């Protein structure tokens, strides 16, 4: 495996980590005002992700930084091309981030409700837009010979990308609802279970639709990409299995299954792209690949050493955080926020 492939894989891993971790905290954020009726309940919901959401978000910052370092042209074309969606996403993340910190700092109901809906919107918008972005990556966007995106904003809002967006949105909500099943008790847990049973099947339908649409509308599975093999099947299968575990009341297993679904869906998308990182819809020759978009072998080597040293350490202490906060949030829990 050459360094370019290694870095493509590493970025895929960063996105898998990001979607699994931030996926459930987006889901929890969306469910917050819907499941939490009283202030105490909403604070309990926030507490399930309070200690970890910021660390989870660093996964995407790292993915962005790694893309910049390893594939500068990918970073440049993607970020300048998907300009307004990224602006919306950043705005949403700003509101969401401060909302967690600010919402309990004032007693007025209107204050708290405003920030709660800020968390809702700030979670919903990126949960949707990540799917839209990945859908567009797979389908291809107008990129000219100079690696410059030439489409506009509305180019990105095509039916295929919207299906992908609804898939990521519903998958994250399901993932978050199952997480809440694991982390709460009593009435909240009952409501989380009800939400899981409503959103789970919808997510399954959208993943199925996405796989079909990918066969019909893109060359992802037939073109240059690596055949993802069983990955898309496993994504759908794991989600169906998650449904079975939910009905059996085995929430830990159900959560593992939604993790598998997210990982497999991400692997499907990245392996279908490989060795391309952005597909040009104008001319296949103009697509960005892990070779024509990359940094020099020297930089990739330096970054490989850094990543191989740092990533295991990060995984260890983040894992430890989840261990420390493994307990359910209950009516007796002392709430910091």
């Amino acid at each position: 495996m050459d360094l370019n492939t290694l870095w493509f894989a590493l970025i895929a891993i960063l996105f898998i980590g990001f979607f699994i971790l931030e996926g459930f905290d987006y889901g929890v954020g969306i469910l917050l005002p819907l499941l939490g009726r009283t202030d105490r309940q909403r604070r309990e919901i926030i507490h399930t992700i309070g200690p970890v959401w910021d660390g989870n978000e660093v996964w995407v910052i790292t993915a962005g930084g790694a893309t910049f370092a390893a594939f500068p042209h990918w970073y440049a074309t993607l970020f300048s091309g998907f300009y307004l969606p990224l602006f919306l996403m950043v705005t949403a993340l700003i509101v969401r981030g401060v909302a967690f910190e600010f919402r309990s700092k004032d007693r007025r109901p209107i204050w708290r409700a405003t920030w709660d809906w800020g968390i809702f919107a700030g979670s919903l918008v990126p949960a949707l837009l990540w799917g839209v972005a990945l859908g567009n990556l797979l389908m291809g966007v107008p990129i000219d010979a100079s690696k410059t995106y030439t489409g506009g904003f509305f180019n990105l809002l095509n039916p295929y990308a919207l299906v992908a967006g609804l898939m990521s949105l519903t998958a994250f909500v399901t993932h978050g609802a199952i997480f809440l099943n694991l982390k709460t008790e009593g009435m909240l847990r009952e409501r989380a279970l009800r939400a899981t049973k409503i959103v789970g099947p919808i997510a399954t339908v959208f993943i199925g639709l996405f796989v079909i649409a990918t066969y019909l509308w893109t060359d992802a599975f037939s073109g240059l990409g690596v055949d993802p093999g069983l990955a898309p099947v496993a994504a759908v299968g794991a989600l169906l299995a998650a449904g079975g575990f939910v009905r059996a009341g085995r929430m830990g297993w159900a959560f593992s299954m939604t993790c598998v679904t997210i990982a497999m869906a991400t692997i499907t998308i990245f392996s279908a792209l490989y060795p391309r990182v952005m597909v040009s819809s104008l001319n296949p020759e103009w697509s960005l690949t892990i070779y024509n978009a990359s940094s020099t072998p020297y930089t990739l080597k330096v970054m490989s050493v850094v990543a191989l040293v740092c990533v295991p350490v990060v995984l260890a202490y983040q894992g430890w955080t989840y261990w420390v906060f493994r307990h359910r949030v209950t009516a007796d829990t002392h709430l910091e926020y």
Partner: protein
Amino acid sequence: MDPVTLARWQFGITTVYHFFFVPLTLGLIWVVAGLQTAWYVTGRDLYRRMTKFWGKLFLINFAMGVVTGLVQEFQFGMNWSEYSRFVGDVFGAPLAIEALLAFFLESTFLGLWLFGWERLPKKVHLACIWLVAVGSNLSAYWILVANSFMQQPMGHVINNGRAEMNDFLALVTNPHVFVQFPHVIAGAMATAGFFVLGISAWHLRRGPADDVNREAFRLSFRIGAIYGTVAIVATMVIGHAQAQYMVKVQPMKMAAAEALWETENPAAMSLFTWGDEAQQRDVFAIKVPGLLSFLAHNRFEGEVRGIRQLQQEYAARYGPGQYWPPVKWTYWTFRIMVGAGMAMFAAGAWACWLTLRGRAPAAAWLLALLVPATALPYIANSAGWIFTEIGRQPWIVFGLQKTVEGVSPAVSVGEVLTTLIGYTLLYGVLMVVTVYLLRTYAMAGLGVEPDPAAAPAGEPVAARA
């Protein structure tokens, strides 16, 4: 409006705004960690309550620093795609390392610290806040490695039409970062010192609510005074070294900072100059003979090159074009930074004198002056960054790429304008909210802050089940 101007405004606004919050994070974390250590060692409850008080203000500020940092990470690609293509091979590395090494550390351990008061053993909980301190200050190093590359490119070759890294060690040990990083860190500590000092002075003047508050704010006053003053002295000393370094590697920035049109030997230092930039001459000026030579070379003689001579040299080396930065901006932001720094030194030294003689609570009307002095470091920090970034113009990477060459061709004027207005409005609203919260919690003092555990007003207690 052209896209370059709009993209530059966007970078300026979002970066200066981001840097309202960063220095306080970098500097105040040491105070919080120090107080918690004092609690751990002595077991005195006062220190725990002080940790909680300053910690709460730290967190409100920290959240703003984190979220506005997202924009920074994204906007190189969004607005400056050609810059990103040109430097990505070099510049991306420190950004990625910053995230891997520092952001993970600070955000993960902050979560542990914040929610771990009752879950973690005291010693482990204390270690968490120190790791946050290390992580956040480490992130400053890596982002300044990136910025130093823009000021003085090191560790690269130009190949295939872009800058390619060929010496990682040279990149991360850029001599520029060794003057810039300590200056920024010391400035951040001074910011935190004056923040602590100003709030403590406000409480002491108004009369603390109870004995605990009185003791807490007397102690905080002393901490703020000493911390802030030592830090501002360090900032000025390092700043002096940085200026001497700048004379060597970015002489044009220094010439513009002094509105020095002609090379002088010995060179006079301008105290006040009103110049005509188009004519390249002074209209009115007050100057101290020889002082600029002294600042540049530590003796009252020695050449300091002027804008005209440098312009000729650069035009010969880089081809035709204008190579001096906007002189008015550079000249005045430099003076605002230095002036605010000197005012901080005066205020800090005076506060130290008061507190070390144990007179702090008595001098009420003088205490009142320390409250608005909290604004001084913010003025100095912002002016300093505007100075160093505008002073590098017309370059985005000194000597390698011009700013006009860096913008994204894929982004239309309307799009940049949309995001510029969007960010500005959002940032404006958030500033109001942040100032409101900081004010409320700063004024509430210890232990009487609004309790988040309380139900919101109007909600019946019975509904909380």
